[in-house]
Structures are given as C-alpha cells and as structure tokens.
C-alpha cells in the first residue's frame, strides 16, 4: 500500500475503534462466563495459573531485560506466588455459587462485575498481570490488560499465555485480552468507556487519579512510603535481617518496601551495626549528599535508579561499597519536604532517622506518610503491644506489619493479610478500597431477602443452582451452520453440517459419515431427476 493511502486510513479513530472492539468482545465473553459453574471456573483458573507458573522464570528474566528493573530471581518468586500461589490461596473459596444464610432468610447470588480493565505497572509487570487475571478468572469476569509501555512485551506474553490456557480449558473466547500497543490517549479512551465495569489501576498517582476521574467504578492503588519503626523493645538482629531482606527484595521495587527506618535513639547505634552485619552499607555524610543529589537532584525522583541494585547505584555515584552490600543506608536528620531522602525511593536506598522516644517515633512515621504513601503500609519492630497499637492508630497506613519484612508482609506473604499485589489505600489514599485487593472486590452479590415476619417461611434453596437448564452458552469459537426444515434434504444433511461446523480437524468418522450423506443426497437428486 502506498504512503498517501495509508496516511488517509490512519485516522484517530483507528486505535480507539480497535479498542472498542476489544471491549465489545470482552462483553460477550463476560456475558457467557458469568453463567459458568464453579467446577468449570476452577478448571479454567487452574489451567491459566499453571500456564503462568510455567513461564514464571522466563518472563521474570524478560521483565528485567525489558524494563531494567529488579532482580530476575526475585521476580520469578513473585510470578510463582501470583500464579499457582494465588490459585492455592483461594481454591477453597467459592465466588460462583449461591450462599444461603438461613438464619437471616437471605440468599446471596454472586454477580460478577463484567469487564475489568486492568492497568499494570512497569515495576512489577508480569506478577501484576498474573495477579489481576487470576482474580478476574476466579470471579467470572472478562479482563483487558493495559500494560505499562515500558513492560508491554513481557506483560502481553504472560497475558496471552494465560488466555490461551484458559480458552483451551473452556473459557469463552476473548476472556483475557491485552492492549499490545498502549498509548495515553488510548488508555484514557478505554477508561472512560461505558463498557468498562471496573478499573483496577496500579501505577503512579497520575494513572490512578485518571482512573478515578474516568466516571467508571475504579479500584486504584497509590504509592507507598513505608516507615519502619524500631523501638527499644525490638529484637534488633532479627529486625535488621528482616529490614535488609525486605528492602533488597527485587531491588526494592515494591510499593510496600520500607522507605525509612525510624530508630529509637537508645538502640540506634546497635541497630545500625546489626543492619551493617545483615548487608547494609552505612553511607558517610558526604556520600549521603551525593546520593541525595543523584536520586533527587533534578527535583523529582531519578527513574534511572528504579529497581537497580545497591552495588550499581553505588558505582554510578562513585561510592565504594563492599561487594556484599544489599542496601545503602542514608542517615538523615529529619523527615519532611526539606529532606528528599525521606520520600519514596524505589531502589535499595534506605533512610535512617533517630528519634528520642516512642512518641517521637510515631510522629516521625506520621510525617513520612504525610508526604506520600497515605493509606498504604507501615512496619514496626517491637514487642510492646501498647506501642504497636498506638502506632497503628496514629500512622495513616491501613496495614501495619509487625516484626516482619514489610515488602512481603504487607502484600500478604508471611502474614495473614490477603495475598495481593494491589494494595488498597482506602480513604487516606483517596481510594475506594482499604484492604489488599482480592477476588471479592470483583463480585457483587444480589441478596434475596424474605420478610422477617415469622409467618413468612423461608424457601428451600439448598438443591438449586442459579443457572438451571440454560440454553447452550455461546463461547465464540464457531459459527453454527444448519439447514432449515422446509428445505429439501435438510434433515439428513444436518448432522454432517453440524459436525463440519464444530470446526477443527474432522475425525475420520465424521468425514466418512459426511461422504456417505453426500453420496445419498447426490443419488437421490439424480434419481429424482430421472423420473
């Protein structure tokens, strides 16, 4: 095709039109999938999770290669957790069948959202894609993934592998789709589409705010800036190990990572020592200045350091650190807008600030979150329950992880929080959900409510299914072919046509039957003509 014609064909509506067709296909898929039963949904979810699990390692490497962020080995763990792990975590929960609450004379009928539009980040690309798809499949929703442009290739590969497995296991066509060439105007168009039932937005604040402004229901999660308060009652060696392990995990690319250690003065030196022993390098005052300049010198966070290792950051700045260094600690005198290093740092650079007593620790932690990360996560290392409770009541975080690595613990790994890579930041964080996002956030329930008068007896629903004796559900894989009844030769030929329409490779048996029917029809036609 020549350039002039191609230019005339390349109007603005080409992209949005193609996206509208994805949405429309998703609606079809969602309409069918909403009527699948529990067993079919379990089969589909499991198949998709296994396909994702099988690619956990290769896509972890692909993600690091494509984005330059993080540690492949850690990403692999996250990918595994978000595929098979999520399946295992929820396999005994049922989001597909009715629930009878006999004592309240209520029956609850699950109603999936419909079409989920999921924005996924560059920092945790594949695992977030996996996670959101798993949630959608478990709850009988269709999902369209819009990956971050920096991570579009690995994200699409993961999503498409899950789509293929899900469809092979019986899911309707188009249940999982992915925008392979995401652009801002396109994302905005889809977000505002009335065909989207709910937006699951993970990413920077602008993306999340855009989701909330779209006019569609949205579950958006914002940035973190987690304080890790260590008081005088903490087990310092254990705390140090947990903090270093957590902060260095995937080169600190999770929003649940510790941002700044807040240490009670009485144990601060000992804690620093323990942190050093665990793999932390304590920067000297002039080095802290260089780090601050490198990370924030341009006014905003230098994205070049996102997900890079401590050694690489040190070498870029020109600081000599031992080869065993996992985290660079930067002692700072205060937190707030006049100390850039107290902001969120998506790299293994960890602020360290001393406070005279518990009360100051709590107010310093509050100050950290006042800057960013409201509603997100906080950690505390302490054995004093009164301190823990006061801290949790004061700091504007909706999950407070106690004596555990914050990056994993807040995400529900190694704690009993819901396992999630999408952290609800609630009203503090201008979000609609304050919990770790899970499947339950993608289903509403229709409640059948009987009169509470004793004379009105509650019906017996125990042996009923919501969708009984339904007509066959369309799955989008074949177009039917039938002959009518008023057409000559119709009845005999119908079976063969159906077999043909069933698509794919014809079995020998069907082919033979077809040939036979064809022979009979031809013979009859010939006989009729001879008369």
């Amino acid at each position: 095709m020549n350039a002039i014609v191609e230019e005339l064909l390349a109007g603005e509506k080409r992209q949005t039109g193609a996206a509208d067709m994805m949405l429309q296909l998703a609606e079809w898929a969602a309409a069918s999938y909403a009527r699948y039963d529990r067993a079919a949904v379990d089969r589909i979810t499991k198949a998709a999770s296994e396909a994702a699990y099988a690619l956990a390692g290769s896509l972890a490497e692909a993600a690091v290669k494509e984005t330059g962020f993080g540690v492949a080995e850690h990403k692999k763990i996250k990918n595994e957790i978000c595929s098979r792990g999520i399946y295992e975590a929820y396999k005994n929960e049922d989001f597909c069948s009715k629930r009878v609450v006999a004592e309240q004379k209520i029956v609850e009928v699950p109603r999936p959202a419909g079409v989920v539009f999921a924005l996924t980040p560059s920092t945790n690309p594949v695992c977030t894609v996996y996670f959101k798809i798993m949630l959608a499949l478990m709850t009988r929703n269709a999902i369209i993934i819009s990956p971050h442009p920096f991570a579009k290739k690995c994200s699409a590969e993961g999503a498409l592998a899950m789509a293929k497995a899900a469809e092979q296991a019986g899911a309707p066509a188009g249940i999982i789709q992915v925008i392979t060439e995401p652009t801002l105007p396109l994302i905005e168009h889809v977000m505002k589409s009335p065909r989207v039932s709910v937006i699951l937005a993970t990413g920077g604040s602008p993306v999340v705010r855009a989701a909330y402004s779209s006019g569609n229901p949205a579950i958006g999660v914002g940035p973190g800036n987690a304080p890790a308060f260590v008081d005088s009652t903490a087990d310092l060696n254990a705390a140090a190990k947990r903090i270093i392990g957590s902060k260095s995990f995937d080169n600190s690319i999770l929003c649940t990572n510790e941002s700044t250690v807040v240490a009670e003065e009485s144990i601060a030196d000992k804690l620093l020592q323990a942190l050093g022993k665990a793999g932390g390098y304590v920067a000297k005052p002039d080095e802290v200045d260089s780090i601050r300049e490198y990370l924030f010198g341009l006014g905003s966070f230098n994205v070049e350091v996102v997900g890079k290792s401590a050694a690489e950051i040190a070498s870029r700045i020109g600081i000599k650190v031992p080869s065993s260094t996992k985290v660079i600690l930067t002692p700072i005198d205060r937190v707030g807008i006049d100390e850039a290093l107290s902001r969120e740092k998506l790299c293994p650079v960890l602020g360290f600030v001393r406070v005279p007593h518990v009360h100051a620790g709590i107010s310093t932690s509050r100050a950290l979150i006042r800057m960013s990360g409201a509603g997100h996560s906080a950690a505390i290392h302490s054995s004093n329950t009164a301190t823990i409770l006061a801290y949790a009541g004061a700091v504007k975080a909706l999950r407070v992880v106690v004596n555990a690595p914050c990056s994993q613990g807040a995400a529900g790994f190694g704690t009993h929080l819901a396992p999630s890579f999408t952290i609800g930041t609630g009203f503090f964080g201008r979000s609609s959900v304050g919990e770790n996002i899970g499947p339950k956030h993608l289903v509403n329930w229709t409640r059948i409510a009987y009169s509470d008068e004793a004379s009105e007896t509650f019906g017996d629903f125990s042996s009923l299914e919501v969708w009984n004796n339904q007509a066959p559900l369309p799955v989008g894989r074949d177009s039917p072919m039938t002959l009518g009844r008023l057409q000559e030769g119709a009845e005999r030929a119908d079976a063969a046509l159906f077999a043909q329409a069933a698509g794919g490779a014809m079995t020998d048996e069907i082919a033979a039957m077809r040939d036979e029917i064809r022979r009979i029809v031809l013979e009859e036609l010939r006989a009729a003509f001879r008369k």
Partner: protein
Amino acid sequence: MADTEQSPAKQEFIRKSIQFWNPGKTQFWQDAGVDLVIDRRQDYFLYDMDGRRLIDVHLNGGTYNIGHRHPELVEVLNRGTQRFDMGNHHFPALGRTALAEKLAKSCGGDLHYTIYGSGGGEAIDIAIKTARHAKQKKKIVSILKAYHGHTGLAVAAGADRFSKLFLADKPDEFINVPFNDLNAMEDALKAKDVAAVIMETIPATYGFPMPLPGYLTEVKKLTERYDALYIADEVQTGLMRTGEMWGYQRYGIHPDIVVIGKGISGGMYPIACVVVREPYAGWLKQDGFGHMATMGGAELGCLVAMKTLEILERPQTRPMVNYISELMASGLTEIMKLYSDFFVGIRQCGVVMGLEFDYPEGAKPVMKHLYENGVWAIFSTLDPRVLQFKPGVLMTAALCEELLERVERAIGLARAECKGLGKAGGKRYAA
C-alpha cells in the same frame, strides 16, 4: 399499519412518495403494515421519521454489516475528501490499486486482479463479460430463483420475475437449474458450451436455502470438468457474515471469479468489486479499456472499502461473529420450542439466516409484527415463508439479547394472528 399514529408530516411525505417517487413500492409497504420512512440511522438502529427506533436486521442485504455510519468509516470518508474525489478511471489511481492489492491478499490463491463497478449488478455484468471473454462462450448457468441484480446481464441471470418485466430474459443464453440439484447442473454443463456458472454462495432473495454438504464443491468440480468458470456472487455472503471473510471459504471452494458488493461500501460510498483469477483476466491485457465506469472504483469508495476490510480483519471480529450466531441459534431454538407449529426451522450459516414459518407467506405477518415491535427484517421475495434474518457482525451482547426478546414477542403475535387466536383474528396474507 403500525400501532402508532402517523404524524401529519409523515402522511404528507408518503403521499408525495406515491406521487413523485415510486407508487407501487410505496403502496406495497403501506399494505404490508410497514409504514417505515427512515430518517436517522446509527449503529444497528434505524429511526423512523416519526422517531420510532428499529433494530436493523435487514441491513440491506449486509450493506450495513458493520453498522450504520460506522465512526471509522465516517472518519476515513471525511479524511479522504480532504485529498481525493472519485478520481479519473482512465489512470492508475492510488486508492484503486491499494484496494485491489488488499483484495488479492484477502481472497487468496491466484484471485488476483480487481475490476471495479459502482454496484453489485454492474459487478455481476463485469464478471459475466470476463468469463465470456476468457472462455469465448456465451452461455451462463445460474440457479432458479437466483438474484444477481438488475443490470442487463445480471437481471438476465436472475429470477424471471425481474427479467421478463423488461423483456430482458434471454433463455437461450441464460440457463436456470434448481439449487442443490447436481444432476441438473451437470446436464446444463455437459455440452461444454457454458462460459460460467454463477452462484450466490447462499441464495438470499430465495430465503437463504443452504447449500447441502458437498454441493458447492461438486458444482466447482463440474465447472472444471466441463470447461466453465465458477463465479461466486459474494454480495451477501462475503465480509465475515458466514464466519469466514468470504462465504466460499466456509464451504471450502476456490472460485474463478468473486463478486463483492453491498457491505464492502460500508453503506457509505457506492463501490463493488470483481476479483478474477490471473488466467481468466485476459481482457485486461488485451484491451484494458474494454469495460469502463466513471464511478466504478471511485477512490473515496476504495478508502471506505479498505477501512471496512481492516475492521473485519481485526482479531476480535471472528469470535464476535461466532458469539452472535451462536446466541441467535440457541435463542431462536428456544423460541421455536414455544411456537413449534408455526416457527419450524432455522437456516443458518453464521449471521446469514432464514427463519422458516410453516404458513403460506408466513414471513409477512412476522415482518409486520417485528416492525411493530421495533425490529426491521424483510421477508424473502422469492420464498415468502422465509424471513431473512441478518444480524450485523459487530452487534453487542446486550443488543442481541434485546433483539431475541423482541423477536419472541413478535413471532408469538404473528402466530396468534395466523392461527386465528386472540384479538388479532385470522387475517390471511395473500400474495
């Protein structure tokens, strides 16, 4: 007559249509209870000039396959007018060659050259002329009650209702054989004096009788055996309507000449195309000026056609067509169970559908009740027991559900009327 009162403006308009435009056709619709005057149109909706909304499952034989005024077609037409007009048909033209290249790729094999017309009938004429030139024979075989359009050769090849009216029938050159009758076909071809067999892949105006398994492949083989060409009239069956881009692909044949019309225009700019296999396009080399049409392949139409193909080639289209046709199949089967003594059969290939009513001219009352219930579908002129039911390939799940709900109601009412049940009484529909 529709259950709503006509506005004075509409009454006046209908009067004028009888006076100035086409008295026979206008009156026919008034008598059939369909007083439709189409005003606005959008997506799969028509709006009567009195404001009533109808779901369009007539689509003018697939012309509005991807919906009325598809926004991407409107855009490409607007953009096109900033640079192009129809063009000069004597010269190589950017749009024409680009579309021809795209069609060659889409049609497959050595279907290669595209010759343009401005409508389906003209395109059929081109196809017949091309076959005659290639084979240096005159006879054309077509199906009894076939419909190929109204131009000179096309009308002669079609049902005699339209050819005899204008003394355009040529029984010695145009032979009709019954559909699905291979023996008759073989007899017609045996003398090897036939240039081409022309076939609607599924005869539309005849109520979409479906080709029996193997019929089309056998016909293709017969044309090969008896030195004739196979012309596939894909005007109504092309463009994803059968679940494949071209209907012949669904039936596993490879024609010598393919005729494309209606939907390729997107209903936005008239255009029709004839795609010819390399060996049979000799006249294009011998005398490239042999067939000419000032408006054939107008370049604005080429742009619209390319955009139409682009939309249909998107990976979402195929599953969407599958969903729509699956839901229609299961939904209509449920309705058939309710009214099994009236609504007796479904002829279907993708979204090409004929609904059978076991009552003389049964599709006419169904059409009327559908109209009154907000759905526009047309009966089959050449078999009025059958309603042509032609959903678009990009219909939404919600709209399909609404359509089925309306169809169920309308068929129930039509049945009651035909069977003399209820207050509608037993009015019969004469021809």
